[in-house]
């Protein structure tokens, strides 16, 4: 074992209480954060561990294999502060990994950012309010491809048909901002297993193929349907 030649074991004091708990002070063996100032270490019958300790780089560790309970304020004044966590200089990180969620519940929740507040969601961001949602800023922007909050001119259909001879009323009707019916069913099913989604997908594809064939037939017969309020005249560029 390639440990340092100058380890000072004389300053190490261990209080061991069998294999389940120990207090280890001044242990000179090197860890990732330097040597150890002290550690209190416990092990359950299942081999799950708990550690609190301080390393020589000043980092204080609290590790636990199962849950950590921090409960305070059972007898405190209801207007006081029960739990106070402060980072004096740097960030405060809260991370739930793997299957975890970060849950915050209170009768009122205040997120007070001196500068910026960013909400990122890989999939859905849902904001529900029973009474009112207020958004106030010097600039308010929305962007997207679908939905009734998307500016009319930026929705996918509107972008595709912008500047064509297809009448605006036809475009508005076809690409209305109301929630699409039918199509959402398959996305809902998609939350189940993928084979359900595939089945639904095939049904929809078959349906469309038939519709498309009909359109193609009309076109080949030369009896094109005219656009509702298409403005004639100038050729499209």
């Amino acid at each position, binding site marked *: 074992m390639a440990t340092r030649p100058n380890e000072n074991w004389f300053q190490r004091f261990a209080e061991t209480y069998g*294999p389940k708990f*120990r207090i280890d002070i001044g242990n000179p063996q090197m860890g990732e954060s330097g040597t150890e100032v002290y550690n209190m270490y416990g092990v359950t019958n299942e081999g799950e561990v708990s550690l609190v300790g301080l390393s020589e780089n000043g980092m204080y560790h609290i590790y636990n294999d199962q849950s950590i309970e921090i409960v305070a304020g059972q007898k405190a004044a209801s207007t006081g502060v029960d739990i106070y966590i402060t980072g004096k200089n740097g960030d405060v990180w809260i991370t739930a990994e793997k299957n975890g969620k970060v849950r915050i519940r209170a009768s009122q929740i205040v997120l007070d950012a001196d500068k910026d507040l960013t909400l990122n969601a890989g999939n859905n961001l849902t904001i529900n309010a029973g009474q009112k949602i207020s958004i106030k800023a010097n600039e308010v922007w929305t962007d997207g491809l679908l939905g009734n909050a998307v500016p009319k001119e930026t929705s996918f259909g509107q972008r595709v048909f912008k500047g064509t001879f297809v009448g605006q009323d036809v475009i508005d009707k076809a690409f209305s901002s109301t929630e699409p019916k039918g199509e959402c069913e398959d996305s809902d099913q998609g939350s189940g297993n993928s084979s359900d989604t595939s089945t639904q997908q095939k049904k929809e594809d078959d349906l469309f193929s038939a519709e498309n064939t009909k359109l193609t037939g009309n076109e080949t017969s030369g009896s094109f349907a005219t656009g509702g309020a298409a403005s004639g005249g100038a050729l499209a560029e």
Partner: protein
Amino acid sequence: MIDESLVKSNFIGRDGFRWWIGQIPPLSTMGKQTKGNGWGNRYKVRIMGYHPANTVELKDEDLPWAICMLPTTSGTGGAELSTSIKLTQGDTVFGFFLDGDDAQLPVIMGCLGHTKYKVSGEIGPFKPFTGYSDYIKNNGARIVPTETNEKTSTSAKSPRLVSEKKADAIGGGPTGNERSFYSAIGETTQGASASRSKILDKISTALENFINKIETLNRDISFGIDGARRKIDIEIDKVTKSIADSMSGMVTGIVNTIFVEMAPILNQGLKLLYRLVYNLVLSATGNPVAAHLAGVAAQNAMVAPIKFLQNKIPTVANYIINSIASVIKGMLKSIVNNIANFVTCVADQFIGSLVNNVIGKMANTLKSAIDGIQKITQFFGGFSIKNLLNQNPLALFGGKSSPLSCGEKAEGVDAQVLKWVIGKGPKNAPGFQPEKIVDLANNAMSIVGTAKATISGVQEAVGAFDIYTSNIKNANFKSTLGKCYAGPPLTCGAPTISIFGGDGIGAAAVPIMGALVNDSVLGQTASIIGVKILNPGSGYTFPPFIEVLDNCNKGYGAQIRATLTPEGSIEDMYVVSEGEGYPVGEVVPYVVDRVKVIDGGRGYKETDKVIDNLGNEYRPKVFQGTIIGVDPINRTEIIDLPVLEVISDTGIGAFLKPVLDFPTQGPAQTQVDCITK
């Protein structure tokens, strides 16, 4: 004799005092006393010179009870003041008899500690044997059984604050004498980021943790440790969920970007369709009005197919998100035996695979819809989902960011530290190049004969990536994708210094190695005893984070801090912890170039002395009782980290750190063969 015995009271201290030394027999012989319903602090004792050294003549059960004498600091239990006795079977104890020569009422006064020369063996009278029993068990998984109590590195051995993988390496394997305090030590966590561009980092972090975990479990399998294979399956399930969740942003970003990119193309296609139909009808009929109406009708006929396509937007994203987990699981299973060491190209290839699969899924899901608008895509020969992504690789980061206002900074609120290694601290995250990933994905799909490369359980192709073959563990292997070697590191160079954060740029430094250790397994290793600043950088508003990088991941524990000049450059770097186990080829001597005063303390005098443990002397500069500077008097060459001490009758609180430098030239950057050493 009879007369003498008659006049003796045999009461302690009255007419004689009898010491004894003996041993506590197995706890199983003590009946109710060890089952929680005995009384007092009592142990049976087999006393040397009084009791035979066998259990035939005198059974353990028939030995006398000895009561334990407690120190005054233990408390008696009165007013709930108490400390538990820590004696167990096999312990050598000594004491005295309360009843003198009657020798029936022994008192245990103390014990003799076990040493490393204790021989653990058969349980029997006056033989050294283990203190573990049915009452106290230890399978060694968390605490190495040492059963000694002395001031040595092996006594009462505690786990170490390193990863399980590193503990195994230090101790010589999972059955060695090193344990990790906590199984999550060494794992990297990704903090929340205001920037969506960190999606790929999240995937890479999850993959890196997974591969590190698998390395340890694969080693457990090689040691025949039960349940290791099952643990690999559990890890695959865990990381699958983690990566699948991170993928949501990437998938929705790709879908969004592709539709955004598609819109102007389709718009142009509609206009070209009108022109085509107009020209055809005009040439056939000579009637411009009929030609125009035909062109308009052709555009109108595209409303339904475009609507159909538009309605696919949420469908395709949800379909991919919901089905990506099985893909990831298949990919992880395919690489689990191939990757022996995490390198960034593994993450590049893994993400490239995901990109190919997502694109494949999109193409399949949108096929009918894209076929339906063929009349307007016919004008664009290379129209495909893949090409749309190629035009905007930033889609991998979750799409374009929100527009910035005039004068707004793009950096937003992102943190200085985005990755954290548990047990160690901040980790630099250089980030990904989306163009490189997209190129890699395209190349992997274009390899002749392997364009449909698939992996078990995954429907759509992922591409012919090296990570799916065991060749990636071959140091000489190089595919058309380039060289990506994921086997054990071949050469271990001296550690390097990564400087990040602090708002500044440009700082560079190299470590100064010392405190050499020659190890039969690991070869020559060293600690980091100083840092040579090559470039102080500029623009720092607070001291940057300093990470010690060891390409073989053998060293651990080096912790370095920086101080800044008022102008925002790095003034000094000093070693908080020198670490150990870092590979090194040759160590050249250094000198203490100067001394960094971390805390000047108070009450010092100009006549006070500063010395170090290596024999060097220093001259302190004191102002109003505070040390404001320290100059080395003699610049003796050293290869160990000096610890400075102020000799003062009056001063307190000074904390000094040496800053080392090379006496003549820079360090030798020797490479060490990690395979043979």
